[in-house]
């Protein structure tokens, strides 16, 4: 009896501790979201008021500025690079899962290394080449460089996924006389739905979150939202309200999508280094 009640108390304490830690961990993030609804005077007030008059002015100011274009640029580049990566990468992931070649290890290292390489390693050569190809400050240029990480991500995510699909599925179709291509399109692809959705979302997020490539390779026309927010800091003085509102707008889609794919996050970040 006493043992049981001490167990219940330990359980209660653990829950309380977990909630307290979660609040502590999230407070910096919540602060920024709150800030985006504050007027400048309210931002500088200390102690802050718990109930302040929320204003949409920061968001309205963003919506009428160049930021809207940057936001659209981010969307376009994210979607296009995701679609391209999936089109090129998914068949490769399938083949690499089924095909046992001696080059497998080398290809894996290559893919992992291009995922892990410091962005500046690609930025310098891309910057130099884009100057000649006139791809600096274009969406096309960004889409191409985003393939460096998204294509590897697709292969990484989808290969372990296909490892788990039994080979007997498409083998049965082949014995029945279906071509390889039919087996892949009619049997494998329809079964890949959840994996494809998760991979697509992660690809989009990685493109959406990129800061470094866009910082170097764009100026005005193709500027993406993360770079645009930083520009509020550099050129227009410290407009904290607008910075906070811009930051909140950038992270909104990220939060929604991440929630949808939370089960695949480990997988996407480590390429199935961990089965689970």
């Amino acid at each position, binding site marked *: 009896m006493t043992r049981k009640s001490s167990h219940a108390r330990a359980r209660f304490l653990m829950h309380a501790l977990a909630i307290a830690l979660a609040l502590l961990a999230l407070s910096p993030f919540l602060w920024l979201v709150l800030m985006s609804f504050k007027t400048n005077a309210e*931002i500088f007030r200390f102690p802050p008021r718990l109930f302040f008059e929320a204003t949409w002015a920061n968001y309205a100011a963003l919506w009428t500025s160049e930021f809207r274009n940057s936001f659209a640029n981010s969307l376009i580049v994210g979607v296009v690079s995701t679609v391209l990566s999936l089109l090129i990468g998914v068949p490769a992931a399938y*083949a690499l899962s089924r*095909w046992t070649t001696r080059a497998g290890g080398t*290809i894996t290292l290559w893919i992992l290394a291009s995922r892990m390489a410091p962005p500046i390693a690609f930025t310098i050569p891309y910057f130099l*080449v884009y100057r000649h190809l006139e791809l600096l400050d274009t969406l096309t240029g960004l889409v191409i460089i985003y393939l460096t990480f998204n294509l590897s991500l697709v292969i990484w995510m989808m290969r372990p996924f296909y490892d788990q699909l039994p080979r007997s599925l498409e083998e049965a179709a*082949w014995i*029945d006389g279906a071509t390889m291509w039919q087996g892949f399109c009619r049997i494998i692809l329809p079964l890949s739905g959840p994996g494809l959705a998760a991979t697509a979302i992660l690809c989009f997020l990685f493109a959406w979150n990129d800061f470094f490539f866009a910082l170097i390779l764009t100026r005005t026309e193709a500027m993406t939202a993360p770079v645009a927010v930083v520009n509020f800091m550099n050129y227009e003085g410290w407009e904290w309200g607008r910075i906070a509102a811009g930051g909140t707008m950038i992270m909104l889609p990220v939060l929604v999508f991440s929630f949808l794919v939370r089960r695949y996050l480990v997988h996407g970040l480590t390429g199935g280094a961990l089965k689970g």
Partner: protein
Amino acid sequence: MNSPLTQPLPLAGERSQTLGRIARQQHRFFAFCVAPSLAVLAVITLLPSLYLLATSFTQLNLTRPETLWNFSQPFESYHQLWADTRFHNSIWVQIKLSFWTVLLQLLIGLGLALLLNMRTRLLEALRTVFLIPMVLPPIVVAIIWKVIYTPDISPMHGLFRAFGWHVPALITDPHWALTSIIIADTWEWFPFTMLMVLAALQMMPQELLDAAKVDGASPWQLTWFITLPFIQGVLLVAGLFRLIDSIKAFPLIFILTDGGPGNVTEVTNYYSYLQAFNFSYLGFSSAITVVLLAATIVLSWVIVRLVGWGARID
């Protein structure tokens, strides 16, 4: 539709013929599937890497066109690198940053995972909440911490003042700047190690724990002698992933300290960025980056060996 079960089995000879046909087709089809990816990857990653290597053998400076493709002194950049104290300092800063962030992330991630590893609805919801810092766009994380480290508007500095403590602005104080980056980076990435450890914990065989409990092991003993040995491999892989990623640290440093004050937060990656895109010394910067890239490839190779990809036979 004929399923293989309802069809009469082919005779042995026919069957091996069919399998031979399939094997040949398979080979062609797989090659056809892999080729586009490898071709694209070669163009977008391999060629640029070679280009980077080539540039590192020049003294390329965009303000001096004659330095383009001038290989008269191929190892000059590397010589300079060898003697450059600012480069040495950047490596030392990188080591400090990597060591502390990886260590703290592993400890905090492990602690939280152990705390959250109970199947109650509240804790499962909290797991998702704890993931937020990791999924935020890095630039938003940097903005969040810029707010916290800017005394005028920071709730943290407000609290310090309310307690009557005099605390300098951390990111402009040489003694605190690197620490403040470490704190922000740890906040951003502890969910990663937490998530990996949680996934590993969930695969732990329950019988193992039950057996130890029956033998009278205390919770501490369970954690120390059973759980930790079980997840040490995951901790190692998570640590390596974070280590590689810490080499890429950029947005936090760019927004919070710009490498300063002085050079105290100037990691190698950031130094390379400054050389290339602030000072236009692309040749020299390429040499720095080649060193970074080599380090990344070695670490990736370690991971591939540890995890045992490539060597797998299905």
